[in-house]
């Protein structure tokens, strides 16, 4: 049986699995203090424990245990206070007042104040970690020791602003440590000091990082555990062996080979959960280089979508743990996603007809040839490339498939635009602007900058729509604009998710409170406990 979030929640055979999860039968159990937990994720060791400009998933995982944000977005997509107790928007939405939590101290004993937030916003978030999303921010002022006002040069939607505060780039850093020198190269980034539930103890490169309980954490009794280890295995089979030999308690983001998950769960010693990734859902994408003929024609792009069997990708590459993509705002996004968008069912005959109608008839060497690039940062992309190649060849298109490594893929897609069709990936937060929208607009085109508009597509209508989505402050109207954005994107097809794939957390069945947030891997894990 395929193990998706839906099947986990609905399937009777998965009842035993669900019984081990927080929020269900065990929700009423009283948390136990103490214990040591060893965690990992389905990737590699970070380059530094905290990489101020971001640095990818691995440093995000390690930095969010000692460092905190102002807000968090829970699994039901409600805002939860962390270092901010409340956030108030001005009537014109051109400024926001943030009331900070009192009595919070940094790990070195200094008090957390408004100055830290002002410094973080202006010296760290705007220039380094958040970037274009804070273009409209003009000033951040400390009104008193625990109140901060953010000022913008245009109206900023409340969800957008809160998303920045709760987002990957919104970690609050201590001013007294970072105000001298360069934030990016500060040696403290490898021994981070924050306000979070976990204090850095030791990093053994190539092996693990050890965090110990922050006894002065602002939330009473938390964290529940005494020690937290984040350990790395480069090889998924080794992670599987570690789980089975009790060397590992918890793994995020697909830690073990997909075909092995069912076997682990059936043993009753482990649970698997696809929740906790709502604000970091992943997809495999297809991107057409609209600078080149015939991909500059919308009908050709639509025809090629009909030639690709996306369900086959789900079934064979992701072992049925996913679904064909429809909308760049993914289905995990319950606020802004709509399924009411054009759909491209697998229909090679229709694809051939559309190509014929577009004047691309079959010649002696087929219709035309395609330079298909599958980005080599995920092993799955190469397999998807083979399925796409097969689909296109079945409608008489000659395909040259290449699967270059990560740096080469980045250069060819985003610097040289050296592709006709690219197979890539993105992870999407709930807020669609600018992470998703920038793939479709003219100001998203920036040669050499990764994960922006490399396809060259832009229309005045889409630019206008995204412009309105960026400043609309009425939540209902904004949701309608987001739906319209999804429809336009799926109609124009410059760049679309081919497949949305599930991310799984695997844990021993006595680990409690897993997957409690919408981007749980990047949360503090203060409430994690062991039922032993």
């Amino acid at each position: 049986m395929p193990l998706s979030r839906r099947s986990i929640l609905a399937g009777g055979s998965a009842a035993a699995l669900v019984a081990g999860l927080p929020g269900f039968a065990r929700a009423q159990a009283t948390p136990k203090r103490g214990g040591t937990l060893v965690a990992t994720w389905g990737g590699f060791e970070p380059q530094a424990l905290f990489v101020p400009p971001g640095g990818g998933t691995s440093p995000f995982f390690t930095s969010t245990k000692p460092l905190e944000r102002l807000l968090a977005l829970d699994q039901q997509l409600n805002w939860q206070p962390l270092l901010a107790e409340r956030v108030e928007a001005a009537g014109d939405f051109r400024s926001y007042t943030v009331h900070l939590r009192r009595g919070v101290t940094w790990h070195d004993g200094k008090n957390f104040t408004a100055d830290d937030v002002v410094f973080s916003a202006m010296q760290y978030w705007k220039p380094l970690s958040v970037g274009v999303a804070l273009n409209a921010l003009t000033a951040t002022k400390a009104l008193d020791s625990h109140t901060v006002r953010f000022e913008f040069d245009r109206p900023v939607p409340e969800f957008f602003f809160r998303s920045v505060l709760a987002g990957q780039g919104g970690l609050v850093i201590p001013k007294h440590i970072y105000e001298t020198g360069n934030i990016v190269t500060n040696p403290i980034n490898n021994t981070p000091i924050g306000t979070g539930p976990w204090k850095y103890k030791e990093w053994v490169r190539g092996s693990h990082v050890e965090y110990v309980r922050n006894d002065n954490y602002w939330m009473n009794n938390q964290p529940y555990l005494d020690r937290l280890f984040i350990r790395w295995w480069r090889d998924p089979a080794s992670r599987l062996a570690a789980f089975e030999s009790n060397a590992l308690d918890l793994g995020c983001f697909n830690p073990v080979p997909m075909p092995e998950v069912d076997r682990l769960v059936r043993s009753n010693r482990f649970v698997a959960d696809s929740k906790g990734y709502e604000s970091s859902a992943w997809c495999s994408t297809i991107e057409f280089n609209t600078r080149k003929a015939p991909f500059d024609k919308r009908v050709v792009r639509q025809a090629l979508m009909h030639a690709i069997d996306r369900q086959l990708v789900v079934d064979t590459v992701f072992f049925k743990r996913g679904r064909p993509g429809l909308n760049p705002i993914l289905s995990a996004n319950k606020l802004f996603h709509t399924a009411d968008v054009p759909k491209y069912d697998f229909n090679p005959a229709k694809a051939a007809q559309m190509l014929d109608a577009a004047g691309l008839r079959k010649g002696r060497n087929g219709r035309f040839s395609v330079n298909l690039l599958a980005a080599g940062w995920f092993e799955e992309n190469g397999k998807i490339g083979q399925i796409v190649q097969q689909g296109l060849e079945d409608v008489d298109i000659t395909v040259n498939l290449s699967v270059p490594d990560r740096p080469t893929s980045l250069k060819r897609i985003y610097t040289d635009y050296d592709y006709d069709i690219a197979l890539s990936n993105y992870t999407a937060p709930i807020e669609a602007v600018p992470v998703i929208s920038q793939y479709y607009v003219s100001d998203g085109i920036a040669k050499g900058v990764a994960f922006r508009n490399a396809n060259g597509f832009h229309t005045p209508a889409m630019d206008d729509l995204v412009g309105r989505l960026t400043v609309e402050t009425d939540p209902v109207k904004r949701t309608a604009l987001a739906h319209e954005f999804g429809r336009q994107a799926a109609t124009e097809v410059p760049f679309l998710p081919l497949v949305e794939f599930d991310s799984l957390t695997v844990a021993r069945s006595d680990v409690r409170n897993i997957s409690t947030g919408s981007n749980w891997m990047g949360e503090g894990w203060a409430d994690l406990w062991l039922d032993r």
Partner: protein
Amino acid sequence: MLRLLRRRLLQGVPLILGVIIMNFLLIQAAPGSFLDVMSAESQVSDPAMLEQLRVTYGMDQPVWLQLLKYIWSVARLDFGFSYRQNMPVLAVIMASLPATLVLMLASLLIALLLGVTAGVVAAVKVNTIWDNLLSFLAVLFFAAPSFWLGIMLTVLFAVKLGWVPVGGMMSITASNQGVVATVLDVLHHLALPAMALGLFYAAVYARVMRAAMLEVLSLDFIRTARAKGLGRWRVVLAHGLRNALLPIVTLFGLQFGTVLGGSIVVETVFSWPGLGSVMLDSVSSRNYPVVLGVLVFSSVVVILVNIAVDLAYLRLDPRIRAR
């Protein structure tokens, strides 16, 4: 002997220079750059910031100038700074080198002990069941990829039998261990990775040793030794083994570099905190300073080991000294 040592050390200098130049140019020729990876990982969305980073990392300078600067800094034992790890390259290497050396030495020790022993036994018991069995095992371990062997050993000894840990170099959750306990803990963790890496080389040594022993055992001086009434094993070990060891010593020197390469794979399977993971990450992120640093460092180690091998020749074979 000193003259040989001096000559070999001097010959190593242009060799290392060649390693630096060749690797520097090869890395520069590879498509994509450290900056591409860094900007992608960090979602750098501002082209101006990208340009600023290019200047910060010296990537706006011509390649020949970067190369000259690098050679000059290596001459002063400065391997540069890794912006990815946010620390000096030498510190990155030194943090991982001990683990790799421990793994390499342990696996070579296993390879030598098992390989030489198996080769000698197979030669002495030639064309018997022992010879056939040892030859079969040698072919098996020679043909088995080390990552596959590593996973099989893990499944059997760590997961099924629970005799050894599944990975890492030490028990991470144990604290305040004494020296003896720490050493035992490391040995406990070392067993599987050293076997996975060492068994391949043991197979090579066994085949070479068997052939060398068969050749030596058929020579006149062995017959003379037997005629003088020496015991069988004394003839084999005191006269045959010493003369058959020369090809093994040659192989040892040649294979030191390849063991380093093999350790990258084994370290990945066993989560061994050595240079392997550092190299993999650095190559895939085009982290040139670290890649170059590791290559220069390993070149130096290989050159030094080969000099030691040359010196060992002198000790083992007086005829070479006479020449």
